[in-house]
């Protein structure tokens, strides 16, 4: 009863403040009262009298008329036209706010808005447009109900039964969004999919065996107090109490199993309901398809339950509030392990002590072998490493390339990423490092002597070897190359996309390839690209992309160091769009390290997308900034980045719909 009063007072105060500050800020998003179901606030700034004149004065000169610059017209006849444009592409308005905020627009040589004018435009874009749009479209919330991805499902089944490994290859792969396969809005369900869950459940339960041993790697600790019963591991203390009858035994198994399967405490009625399956199964004992184990039917049913197949979180009644401890356990475990919480996390959640111990728990989780999911799932997707399996270097030009080299390339990157995580190195090692992992095959490929055998090992890199960091690894250099030559464009796009989360616009459909009509390059790749950039139409994007790829020209299409391309000496110099330049690869790497703030932000953003299962929206930016500051204060150590994310409100809290 107190809070509506408080809200009114707050609103009044804000109103007053807004009035004082040039009447610009009339309401704040955080104090916005919900109006109707959508929670959409009426626009605070009048478009016609206030915004339109500013757009007209500062923008429409270029972004208007018949041929607006960049094919972007900001000539909106009325607020409805703005709404339509917003509904079609709200990201456009994010870019507008960015350009305005960073002073990229209007360009320096043009008439500049005053500070209050700029602020007013920003308020209009970010509050009236973007914030309202996000609320009415339910953006910026972690999904209330989110299906496990194929990988999450497989890992969860594995850990639920303490299998050493488990694959669910019959399930269809999940569609990618933002480069990742765990985006909530893309994880749909169909009869075909559910049918495969039914089938997998049947096959999984059929594998259970009362003589099973927990996976030596991952359940070693559990083994001391868990013993299998009916193929399900029970705490030894429960087993020791003995069971009067089968009914009690089955119930005990389910009481242990079900909270783990549903990842939350279960009510006695939920156990009762599943016990019905035990009856059914007992009645059918002896039938060929059901193992004579009365627990198996209930287990099979539980594996098809929406409480197992979906991650479900409760909304707070209103506003923003911390998620429950069990929900936090799942957010942590799916983020860091791509699987269900383990017994320690559950135990802390049960005592309501997980949040209080989350830092030490995160550190423990990062040390666990299960954290390899961050390499195998997150990093593989972040770096597009799956594309390496499709790389097809021309065997005539690159006779050394074969599947074992391909595997070695992938292994180097995987081990390198894993090392950064396990040794808690700085994430700037991804940009440049004086070490990598090699075996004989790859070392020879790189021209490094004295490394023999198939085993990979940590190798210190000499500056003379010009290697260090992800983009000098053969995996990346190969997956970004067409079959016959290098592609500085693809390499540049890869760097912009993965290391800076700043992908360029797509090319028009009819851009010719660098090879002319004869199918051969007229000069070096670099020369042909220079000619391409001379075309003003192409220069816009390519002056942004090419400098990131040209520096890597010393590496051929399979990542071998070279100093010549045909008869020509390699020139690996370049200049960025902002005017900074580099003479060679080594200087380029130094330049990249100078951009560690940009890299940190990009890395945080991509980890967040993966961790939250959704794309980031404008309203997330202040949180990203805070996370970055916090990570920087931890010297960019991997654990520091993870902790900064985990401790952020984005990860800790939920917002009710319409808030």
């Amino acid at each position, binding site marked *: 009863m107190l809070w509506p009063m408080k809200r009114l007072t707050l609103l009044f105060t804000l109103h007053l403040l807004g009035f004082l500050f040039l009447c610009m800020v009339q309401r704040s998003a955080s104090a916005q009262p919900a109006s109707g179901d959508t929670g959409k606030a009426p626009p605070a700034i009048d478009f016609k009298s206030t915004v339109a004149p500013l757009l007209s004065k500062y923008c429409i000169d270029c972004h208007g008329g018949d041929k607006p610059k960049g094919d972007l017209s900001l000539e909106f006849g009325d607020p409805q036209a703005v709404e339509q444009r917003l509904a*079609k*592409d709200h990201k456009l308005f994010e870019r507008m706010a960015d350009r305005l905020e960073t002073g990229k627009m209007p360009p320096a040589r043009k008439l500049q808005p005053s500070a209050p004018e700029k602020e007013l435009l920003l308020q209009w874009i970010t509050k009236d447009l973007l914030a309202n749009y996000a609320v009415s479209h*339910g953006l910026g919330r972690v999904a*209330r*109900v989110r*299906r496990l991805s194929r990988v999450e499902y497989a890992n969860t089944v594995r850990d639920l039964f303490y299998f050493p490994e488990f694959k669910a290859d019959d399930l269809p*792969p999940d*569609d*990618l*969004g*933002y480069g990742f396969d765990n*985006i909530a*809005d*893309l994880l*749909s*369900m*169909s*009869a*075909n*999919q*559910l*049918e495969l869950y*039914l089938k997998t*459940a049947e096959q999984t339960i059929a594998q259970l065996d009362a003589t099973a041993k927990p996976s030596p790697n991952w359940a070693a600790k559990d083994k001391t107090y868990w013993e299998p019963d009916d193929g399900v591991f029970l705490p030894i203390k429960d087993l020791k109490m003995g069971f009067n009858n089968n009914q009690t035994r089955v119930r005990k198994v389910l009481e242990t199993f079900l909270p783990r399967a549903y990842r939350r405490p279960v009510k006695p009625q939920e156990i009762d*309901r*599943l016990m*019905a*399956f035990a009856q059914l199964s007992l009645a*059918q004992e002896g039938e*060929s*398809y*059901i193992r004579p184990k009365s627990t198996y039917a209930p287990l*099979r*049913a539980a594996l*098809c*339950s*929406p409480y197992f197949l*979906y991650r479900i979180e409760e*909304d707070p009644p209103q506003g923003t509030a911390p998620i429950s401890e069990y929900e936090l356990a799942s957010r942590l475990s799916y983020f860091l392990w791509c699987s269900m919480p383990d017994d320690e996390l559950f135990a802390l959640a049960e005592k309501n002590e997980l949040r209080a111990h989350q830092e030490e728990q995160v550190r423990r989780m990062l040390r666990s072998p299960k954290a390899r999911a961050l390499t195998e799932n997150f990093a593989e*997707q972040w770096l*597009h*490493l*799956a594309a390496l399996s*499709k790389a*097809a270097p021309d065997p005539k030009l690159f006779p050394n390339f074969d599947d074992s080299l391909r595997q070695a390339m992938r292994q180097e990157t995987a081990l390198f990423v894993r090392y950064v995580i396990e040794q808690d190195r700085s994430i700037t090692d991804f940009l440049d490092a004086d070490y990598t992992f090699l075996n004989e095959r790859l070392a020879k490929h790189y021209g490094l002597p004295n490394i023999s055998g198939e085993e990979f090992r940590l190798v210190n890199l000499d500056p003379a070897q010009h290697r260090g960091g992800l983009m000098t690894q053969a995996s990346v250099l190969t997956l970004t190359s*067409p*079959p016959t030559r290098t592609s500085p464009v693809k390499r540049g796009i890869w760097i912009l996309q993965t290391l800076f989360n700043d*992908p360029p*616009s*797509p090319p028009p*459909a*009819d*851009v*010719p*390839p660098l090879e002319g*009509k004869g*199918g051969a390059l007229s000069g070096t790749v670099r020369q042909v690209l220079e000619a391409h950039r001379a075309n003003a139409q192409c220069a816009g994007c390519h002056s942004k992309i090419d400098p990131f790829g040209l520096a890597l020209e010393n590496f051929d299409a399979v990542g071998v160091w070279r100093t010549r391309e045909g008869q020509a000496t390699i020139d690996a110099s370049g200049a960025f769009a902002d005017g900074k330049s580099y003479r060679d690869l080594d200087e380029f790497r130094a330049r990249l390290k100078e951009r560690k703030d940009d890299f940190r932000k990009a890395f945080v953003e991509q980890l967040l997308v993966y961790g939250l299962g*959704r*794309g980031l*929206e404008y309203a997330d930016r202040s949180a990203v900034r805070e996370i970055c500051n916090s990570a920087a204060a931890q010297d960019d150590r991997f654990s520091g980045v993870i902790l900064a994310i985990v401790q952020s409100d984005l990860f800790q809290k939920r917002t009710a719909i319409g808030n």
Partner: protein
Amino acid sequence: MAFQPISRRAALKGLGVTIALPLLEAMTPSARAADAVAKTLPRRLVFVYFPNGVKTEFWKSTGQEKEFELGKTLAALEPFKSNMVVLSNLADANARGGGAHACTMPAYLSGTPIFKTQGNDIRAATTCDQLIAQKIGDATRFPSLELGCDFGQQDGFCDTGYSCVYQTNISWRSATTPAAKEVNPRIVFDRLFAGRSAETSIVQQQREAMNLSILDFVREQAKDIDRSVGAADRRRMDEYLTSIRDIERRISAPPPNLPANAANGMERPTRIPALFREHFRLMADMLVLALQTDMTRVATLVMGTEGNRRAFPELGFTEEHHGVSHHHGDASLIEKYRKINEHHVGEMAYLIDRISKVREAESSLLDNSMVVYGSGMADGNAHAHADIPTLLFGKGGGTIDTGRHVVCPTNTPICNLWLSLMDRMGVQTDRFGDSTGLLGGLTA
């Protein structure tokens, strides 16, 4: 990867060139009743999609109406000339936009613009095959089948600014739920035929009884969740509840005429073949069996997802499809582009051949079907969406006059064709997507 063609002869042993026992014919009590049966034979609608457009001058047919010559690319379809309608000047205008390859497939069968997003808040539109399935699907074990020969991109980013979900899914149950295609032939085989033989049926019946109990159980839970979530989050549980209903229908109401051995001698595939031809033919064979046994009446079969980068080493070159489609006038790339187009057309001829050899009463399965072969992309080099390649096979139960080249008015929405096909499938509506009316010219 080494290519190891599996023996198709082995896989299809017993299937033979002609399928001897069309079920619907088996249903026919006597020749006297044949006429009555012919009138009640169901119509079938199949969309076969190929990606990355065509080299238009090789594709285009010349002449009009009954006096026409098939384009060079279509040579393999010459034997079926009298069973097809070549349609020119149809357009997929909604595929235009920043992400040509992203928008083309979902816009193709929906005629609706696709919302640009990497993942949050995806929105396409219900496609015509799914509308039909929702209307008439209750009559068959599967309201529709969605098949394909590749899953779509599995790494990185698809078309800039668009989630890969658009680029991989041609069929959409609703604006937010794709009807994902099945690519693994073994899973399709099991879905269609598992337990349909005498020796497996007892196990299968027990399995189904158990699964029905499980479905009852999970339905209660899903309804509880559904009640507790707001409207914005409800669609996930709606999908789940719909899936439960669909499976129950599969289990409980198989068509009465499904025989013990519906697979008709086809062996269970064991893996996804590496070569396109092997893969497509397995899918095509199963599709024909499904249509023949009336397990479904609506299907989509995607040869490759838009922007597909499959290489065809069996054609003697290593360049991938999408790269070749952007040939920029290069003669050697155009030649490869043409070869890929022809390769696809050749496999389409295989499918039509199979369908045409299935007897149904006094007619053939093809006579009672409408099989569209097309792409939402015309010239792949330019990402053009006007005059998209469109062929229509079959007589639609006597409602289509074949053996003609119908030249429509320029930029006729392809949705006019879809509206006409929906009409023939029993879905009458005034408008669909960007349609402007029924397509004139399907009857002479």
